[in-house]
């Protein structure tokens, strides 16, 4: 089968990189026709925050215009909506900003953690924390990562999950990315999560549509 290479893929943190990989794998399973998406060696890359990604938008747009496939996953955080973020980052004025076909730019609302918590059944089982502790409407969580860490602070029992909690001044604990990545790879039910999170659903649709028909851009 034909392979289409994602030339550059960026996310804000290690966990989001795992999510990108899982989504692409999921997409490849779901599309029965067309090309298989692969990452170029070394990607997705963890850019450690959105600053580096934002700075490189112009160069990435050039690449996408030249037919090199770019995939970016970033967090909406406290912004109003993703079109606003796109207009700002891409310096566009249109109300419905359009990006090059080869630029898959996806915004998690509000953070990647919302997408993961959207499958609260699996997450509850994975962390051995009763499901009642998890919020049920992922898009309504203001600070998803904080929310998740708070749940862990209150309820985590096993040592490896306790080590996901940050020390004072830190953002996450040493086991955070590791455990959550395991969850993403082996336990996260993408179907179920996308049924509850709008931004995840749209990200998946975009990926599935991409290269779905003739192996090149749709």
């Amino acid at each position, binding site marked *: 089968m034909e392979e289409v290479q994602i*030339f550059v893929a960026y996310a804000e943190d290690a966990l989001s990189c795992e999510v990108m990989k899982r989504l692409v794998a999921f997409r490849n399973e779901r599309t029965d026709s067309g090309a298989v998406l692969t990452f170029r060696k070394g990607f997705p*890359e963890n850019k450690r925050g959105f600053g580096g990604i934002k700075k490189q938008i112009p160069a990435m747009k050039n690449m996408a215009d030249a037919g090199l496939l770019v995939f970016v996953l970033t967090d909406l955080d406290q912004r109003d909506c993703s079109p606003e973020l796109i207009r700002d980052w891409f310096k566009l004025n249109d109300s419905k900003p359009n990006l090059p076909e080869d630029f898959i730019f996806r915004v998690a609302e509000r953070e990647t953690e919302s997408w993961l918590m959207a499958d609260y059944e699996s997450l509850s089982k994975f962390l051995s924390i009763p499901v009642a502790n998890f919020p049920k409407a992922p898009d309504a969580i203001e600070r998803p990562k904080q929310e998740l860490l708070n749940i862990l602070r209150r309820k985590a029992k096993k040592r490896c999950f306790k080590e996901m909690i940050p020390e004072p001044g830190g953002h996450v604990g*040493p086991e955070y990315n590791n455990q959550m990545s395991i969850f993403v790879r082996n336990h996260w039910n993408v179907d179920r999560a996308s049924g509850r999170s709008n931004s995840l659903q749209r990200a998946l649709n975009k990926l599935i549509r991409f290269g779905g028909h003739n192996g090149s851009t749709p």
Partner: protein
Amino acid sequence: MDVSRIKATNWRNFRKIDVELNGTTYLLGANGSGKSNFLDIFRFIRDIVNPKGGGLQYAVEERKGMTKLRCLASRQVPGIDLEIELKENGEEVPTWRYCLSFSGEKGGKRRTLIRKEEAYKNGELIFSRPDDKDKDDKDRLAETYLEQTNANKEFREISAFFQKTLYLHLIPQLLKYSEMFVSKQTESDPFGQGFLSQLADTPEKTRVSRLGRIEKILKKALPKFEELQFVKDKHGNPHLEMRHKHWRPNAGRQQEDQFSDGTLRLIALLWTLMSSNNLILLEEPELSLHEKLVGEIPKMLQKARRSTGKAGGQIFVSTHSKALLSDPSISGTFLVLTPTESGESTQIEQPTKDELKAIELGMSPADILLPKTSPIQGELF
């Protein structure tokens, strides 16, 4: 004259190397991927042509023998082959091509013996060994023509080229506490123990001018730095001295053993760049330096290459540094060292057409090439 192409088989962790080079060469790769091994090809040839006791036997013994040198992953080929082309700027045909194949002697004195040695000038063969004389007298095969001044008259330019190779991998502690390390200070002085004597051996006028230029740069790079001087103590030993602004008037000066690691490395880097018109090998020049300074290194290299009174001076740099590789002025040849599919040796990849295109479109080598060298998927912890 620059090294324009380099080929090798079975050199350390490389089964095969064949790369064409242009401008400054940057070597990228994970720890242990062979960056230093690659640079060692040039140091090896320098050891062969070293007029003070060098030679093929010496060069191999310095590296603990053929078994350590020859690629562990190699099977059929018994020895090591090296081939180097030197080209004048803008020429089509390389001015020089030098090939050397050698392997360990079976039994006997267990020397390293030449299997093939050839030199070409402007594409034409000058000599090829083993020749008839070699067949009569096997001992001759223990020495390259390159290392014999009476044999290499016609191609002395090649040895001269490599004799002047400079290797910089200054370890500040070795310089600061030289008395604590009863190290053998090799002729080639790889780790900087001899840096001060090198300063002392430089004609005064040149030294003063270079240190003056270094001082200017340090003034910008080091907060409160004021003055850099070369002095000799009462025993005649060379030292560097530094003075800072706002020190009490009689606070005196600091000598090199009190310099910070980064200061020493920066001074050595600048000195090396100023002191050679030839091949310069830089090991991870980013070490100990603030990221802001690291980002200036590509410009430093370009300026050194272009500076007046210099014929060029080709530079090879091994680096892990994002800051260095994302400076917008960076240009040259980028070699990415990656494990082969089977993982038993390393291959050298040059950027693909798409990767070059991406760099042209505004991405940096750090963005496009460095991720390929990442040793781990995800995180270690």
